[in-house]
């Protein structure tokens, strides 16, 4: 007789409908992760009460923690479902608890709409402006320490963990969140990107920008890719301070 594991999942049928909980029981297999649990439930969507239901909807893509699509709140902590291994989760609590991320609109069940983060990337111009496809020659040299820091910042996969744990990101606030600040810092450190640094800083100086950070510093602890988010926030705080002084007294 194989071992059974229990999952309580928060369901939601549509964007505006009310969430409700359902509990499922599936057979334990070695090396299971949350995604494989959801696949097993989809194969036989029957609750512990014996009620036939719809398969649970969720979002996933790469299954190796580089795309961020399967991010959800697992046992009360936001993380990726693909790298959340069942045996570890059962050490945390007896029944695995799955909820959608709390700071994004739910599309259905565990599937959320994370488009606000992409809008934020547009707002801070998280790209390098190129005005030609022609060959411009070699780019400027980048110091290795700068390149290392930029690499760390570039690991962001827009998963939304930092947004979900941030007390300043919520439906009553305009705060853009740590992710976009990190990416603004990344492109401001690029030799070509630095030429439009002022535009990124200006975008972060209005309502909902860098000043709305509350310094809870949850973002950096929740980030699965160890992106130096609080460093980026501190650096952007410094850059906006200098930019404001220049704007007021020099320019």
């Amino acid at each position, binding site marked *: 007789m194989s071992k059974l594991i229990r999952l309580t999942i928060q369901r939601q049928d549509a964007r505006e409908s009310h969430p409700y909980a359902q509990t499922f029981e599936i057979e334990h297999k070695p090396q299971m992760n949350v995604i494989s649990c959801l696949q097993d439930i989809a194969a036989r969507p029957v609750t512990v009460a014996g009620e036939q239901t719809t398969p649970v909807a969720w979002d996933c893509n790469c299954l190796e923690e580089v795309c961020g699509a399967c991010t959800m709140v697992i046992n009360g902590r936001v993380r990726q479902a693909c790298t959340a291994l069942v045996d570890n989760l059962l050490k945390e609590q007896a029944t695995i608890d799955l909820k959608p991320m709390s700071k994004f609109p739910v599309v259905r069940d565990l599937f959320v709409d994370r488009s606000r983060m992409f809008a934020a990337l547009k707002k801070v111009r998280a790209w390098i402006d190129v005005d030609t496809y022609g060959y411009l020659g070699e780019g400027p040299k980048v110091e290795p320490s700068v390149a290392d820091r930029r690499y760390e910042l570039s690991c962001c996969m827009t998963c939304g963990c930092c947004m979900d744990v941030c007390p300043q990101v919520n439906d009553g606030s305009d705060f853009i969140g740590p992710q976009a600040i990190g990416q603004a810092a990344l492109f401001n450190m690029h030799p070509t990107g630095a030429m439009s640094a002022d535009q990124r800083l200006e975008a972060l100086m209005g309502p909902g920008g860098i*000043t709305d950070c*509350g310094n809870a510093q949850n973002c950096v*602890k929740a980030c699965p890719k160890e992106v130096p988010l609080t460093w980026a926030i501190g650096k952007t*705080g410094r850059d906006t*301070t200098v930019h*404001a002084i220049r704007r007021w007294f020099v320019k």
Partner: protein
Amino acid sequence: MTQPVETWFQKNHFLVRRLHSLAGIVPIGVFLCIHLYTNSLAFVGPEKFNEHVKQLHEIPNLLVVELIGIFLPIAFHAWYGILIAQSGRINVAQYGWLDNWRYTLQRVTGWIAIVFILLHLAHFRFAHWFGGPAYQEVVAKGTTPFDLTAAGFIMWLPMGLWMLVYAVGLTASVYHFCNGIVTFCITWGITVNDLSRKRVSIAAAALAIVLLGFGLSSLAALASGPAPKATAALLNP
């Protein structure tokens, strides 16, 4: 009609937020340090305390200095701080990291400090407005600042309760200021890396211990000196 005001604040969002941050350190934080130093003289000796308070009262145009240097900055910092506090959703029960506790306590102590400061102003700074005839009688007798303050601690409430209120208000204010030094340094981009933040945190904690020492020792001196017995007789003849 409120639209233009909102627009002005939105337009100058960065400036207003930075002014809120700055006001917490200068002048409010600096004032807190000076104030608690003055208070600590009560522990050194009533004469020292009386002498120093008399000097402070001799500052020309004291009320104007207080208004511009203390009352207006505190009013702005408190009002805008309430708006900031309302924009956050505390989640420390779910994510109990130390920095998240500090974030949460910064808001909780802010609320306590607002209530405490209002009470404290009515209780001591403007006691001649709120104190009533018994208090006026003590003042009329040419009571020294030390005895007058000690009298305040037996007016309206039992002394034990006053001490509790002041110990809580003092601790909250000191925490709010010292943790505020740490967040000020992050906000302005003074401390960017983790090590510098840790060092500033340690320095701020050391300052908090000194300020708490000043504050609590002055409370102890005011509660235990011979003066309260004399003033008690005055207030409850």
